[in-house]
């Protein structure tokens, strides 16, 4: 009897479902929201409503105005980058002096006095320790300056306005305005930029921001660009203009990166990502005075140290590999020399050489050690007597001396241009790759983010090399 009743009710409910129609759920949801809003309106009285908005809207009117909005943004970004790059110089060289020039020989001496076998001290001290020390000294100071500055702006409430101003540019390439922020964050560190994409709550746009973040020239790559530009690009013009020329070259590379970011955002949103859900909204929170110390503390702990720790974890094995391939011999040649020889042909096709390609492969964990690795490998294959021996990375104090070694390694202006391009357009460092995986939880998107820039880099350097050789 009871069962029959239930069946009847079920049948009735099915019948009614057909009658109430499809938008029933929407109406229900809307009704609930509307009722809740009404109750809130009755129960809460707001005071001083006008005060809060007057200052905010004044600031808003300036930072989003047609005349001032864009100049202010560029100025702020330029100041932050300038502070980071110049401000990091001093602590960086201090760290390098302590960790590389003082502590490294000390460790080596210690190892000799306690009779450590050469291969063990080489592997641990010249390999692992040196690369970790290098990454710390190059990476830590700029990050410790860049991230707190950025977080302060974020805390103040300015960054959402930047996203607001720039959104329609990003919309054209299928991306989210907030990608402007994650892109800028990428100028500091791509791994941190990828983490920062959490602010984009639309799945498709977030993936675009993650995959294209690598096109922001990061802190690990700025020094490479500046050094190569100073040595090779600066030398093509009269000495008086060499500083300007190399600066323009580096900025051009960074702008090219932004171009590739827009281009690949557009291409991704039109092809493999078009099925991902896309929602847009951007909250413009009220301004508030930044909580200075708290911000400094959290940005140091959350952003700088976590990223640095990941970088160290990845740099250690890289150092070990670099030392090993330079010191393990097959026949008469070290493993490194074998690999370099076999990569030389392909490298030539790209306007690069085997040394550079090998350096980019072993330095996947950290872009910071590309130049030291290239120098060490160049010395290894050319047999010039500088540096500290096989598998020991080094850098020289003067750009001229560095240039001499590189020219001895067969470098031309084309090599320099292409290494600058390839340094912009290659796979993200392993810290970033790992972070991308952590953020997307997807092997597919991690692979896309890793492989896409390499393919672009290969194509661009190849085209430049061929056209260069035809023209000159």
């Amino acid at each position, binding site marked *: 009897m009871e069962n029959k009743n239930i069946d009847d009710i079920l049948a009735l409910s099915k019948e009614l*479902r*057909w009658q109430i*129609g*499809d*938008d029933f*759920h*929407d109406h229900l*949801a*809307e*009704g609930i*929201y*509307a009722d809740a*809003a*009404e109750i809130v309106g009755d129960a809460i009285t*707001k005071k001083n*409503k006008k005060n809060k908005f007057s200052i905010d*809207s004044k600031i*808003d*009117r300036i930072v*989003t*105005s*047609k005349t001032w*909005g*864009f100049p202010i943004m560029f100025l702020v970004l330029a100041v932050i980058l300038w502070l980071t790059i110049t401000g990091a110089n001093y602590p960086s060289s201090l760290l390098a002096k302590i960790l590389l020039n003082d502590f490294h020989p000390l460790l080596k001496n210690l190892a000799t006095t306690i009779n450590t076998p050469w291969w063990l001290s080489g592997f641990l001290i010249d390999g692992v320790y040196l690369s970790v020390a290098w990454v710390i000294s190059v990476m830590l100071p700029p990050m410790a300056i860049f991230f707190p500055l950025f977080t302060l702006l974020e805390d103040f409430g300015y960054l959402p306005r930047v996203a*607001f*101003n*720039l*959104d*329609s*540019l990003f*919309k054209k390439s299928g991306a989210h*305005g907030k990608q402007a922020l994650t892109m800028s964050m990428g100028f500091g560190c791509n791994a941190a930029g990828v983490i920062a994409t959490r602010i984009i709550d639309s*799945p*498709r746009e977030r993936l675009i921001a993650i995959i294209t973040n690598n096109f922001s020239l990061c802190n690990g790559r700025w020094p490479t660009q500046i050094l190569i530009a100073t040595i090779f690009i600066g030398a093509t013009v009269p000495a008086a203009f060499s500083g300007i020329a190399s600066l323009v070259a580096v900025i051009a590379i960074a702008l090219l990166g932004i171009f590739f970011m827009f281009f690949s955002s557009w291409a991704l949103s039109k*092809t493999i990502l*078009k*099925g*991902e*859900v*896309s*929602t*847009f*909204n*951007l*909250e*413009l*929170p009220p301004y508030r005075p930044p909580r200075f110390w708290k911000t400094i503390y959290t940005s140091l702990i959350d952003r700088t140290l976590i990223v640095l720790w990941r970088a160290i974890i990845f740099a250690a094995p890289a150092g070990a590999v670099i030392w090993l391939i330079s010191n393990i011999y097959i026949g008469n040649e070290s493993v490194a020399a074998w690999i370099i020889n076999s990569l030389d*042909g392909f490298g*030539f*096709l790209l306007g690069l050489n085997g040394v550079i390609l090998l350096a980019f492969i072993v330095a996947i964990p950290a872009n910071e050690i590309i130049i030291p690795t290239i120098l060490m490998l160049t010395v290894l294959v050319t047999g010039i007597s500088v540096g500290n021996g096989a598998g020991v990375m080094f850098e020289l104090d003067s750009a001229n001396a560095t240039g001499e070694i590189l020219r001895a390694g067969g470098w031309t202006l084309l090599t320099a241009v292409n290494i600058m391009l390839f340094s912009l357009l290659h796979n993200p460092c392993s810290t970033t790759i790992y972070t991308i995986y952590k953020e997307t939880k997807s092997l597919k998107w991690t692979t896309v983010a890793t492989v896409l820039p390499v393919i672009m880099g290969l194509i661009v350097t*190849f*085209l430049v*090399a*061929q*056209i260069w*050789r*035809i023209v000159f």
Partner: protein
Amino acid sequence: MNTYDPLNALLIFIALSILIYFLFRPAKGWFWIIKNNYRTNEKMVIEDILKLLFHNENSGKILNTNNLTQILNFNNSLIIKSIEKMTANNFILLDGEQLKLKPLGREYALRIIRMHRLWEKFLAEKTGYDKSEWHERAEQKEHELNTEETNLLASKLGNPLFDPHGDPIPSKTGKMAIINGVALSTLPINTVGEIIHIEDEPDIIYKQILAENIHIGSHIRVTENNNTRVSFFSEGEEFKLAPIVAGNLTISILKKDIINEGNIARLSSLKKTEKAIIIGISKESRGENRRRLLDLGFVKGATVSIDLLNPLGEPNAYLIKGTAIALRNNQASKILIKKIN
């Protein structure tokens, strides 16, 4: 390296790029064509024929074999073979040249239509594919899902009754909600109604409707109807269509002027100094997007005004419930408001 010549290398590269382009370019790439041809099998042909017969019989037309070979893009021998098989399986009745559906065939056709419309609903609610792609993708998918998967999909979507174009979705048992509507092109001036269905075929006309930014669920008032033009007023804007395009919009006539549609406008039309009350969110805003807007407080009865105009035109920031939220114009156009003074 003796054979290396930069010009040759460049030419080889260009040749390879062109080859890859022709192989993989979207839709027309050779690779996709070959893949699709390989996939075309008897099952697909049979299902497409059944669907075609079903739609035509519903509008009172009986097709013959010649019609089929003209309409469908398959090779003729495949169609003939399929017709033989369908007759043998009791799906259709071959009455001279004419093809008529038997009950089994109707049932099968309804199942395919159910899959098609459910998949369109799925694409609309759960993915980011553009409207213009839904139909093509569903055309492919309807042949791939089996009944069990379809039922699972239906229950995950909450057993919807209508697809995003407003077509009824047949239930598990083949039951379908009935649409009580007439084509826009047949309505006299001053009729008030609601757009309940937008036909997505043929593609060219559908694209025109999309370009006009006409939303399903919108209330309209016909202002002009003659041989050359059908105009109507809706959500604060006037739309002008060719009669053939208007014929693809189905309108359900509203008995009374329930809402004074002269006052309804889209949020995107709000001016800097104006204030408005939200009336609702258009049916065109679906899935995640719709829920997000509701979450942010764009609900019926809320007051909204413009907080900040964007230096580049969009997105503009709207002040809702004391918070400034920036929305792009295509989103704001799906929020309906009534302006107040």
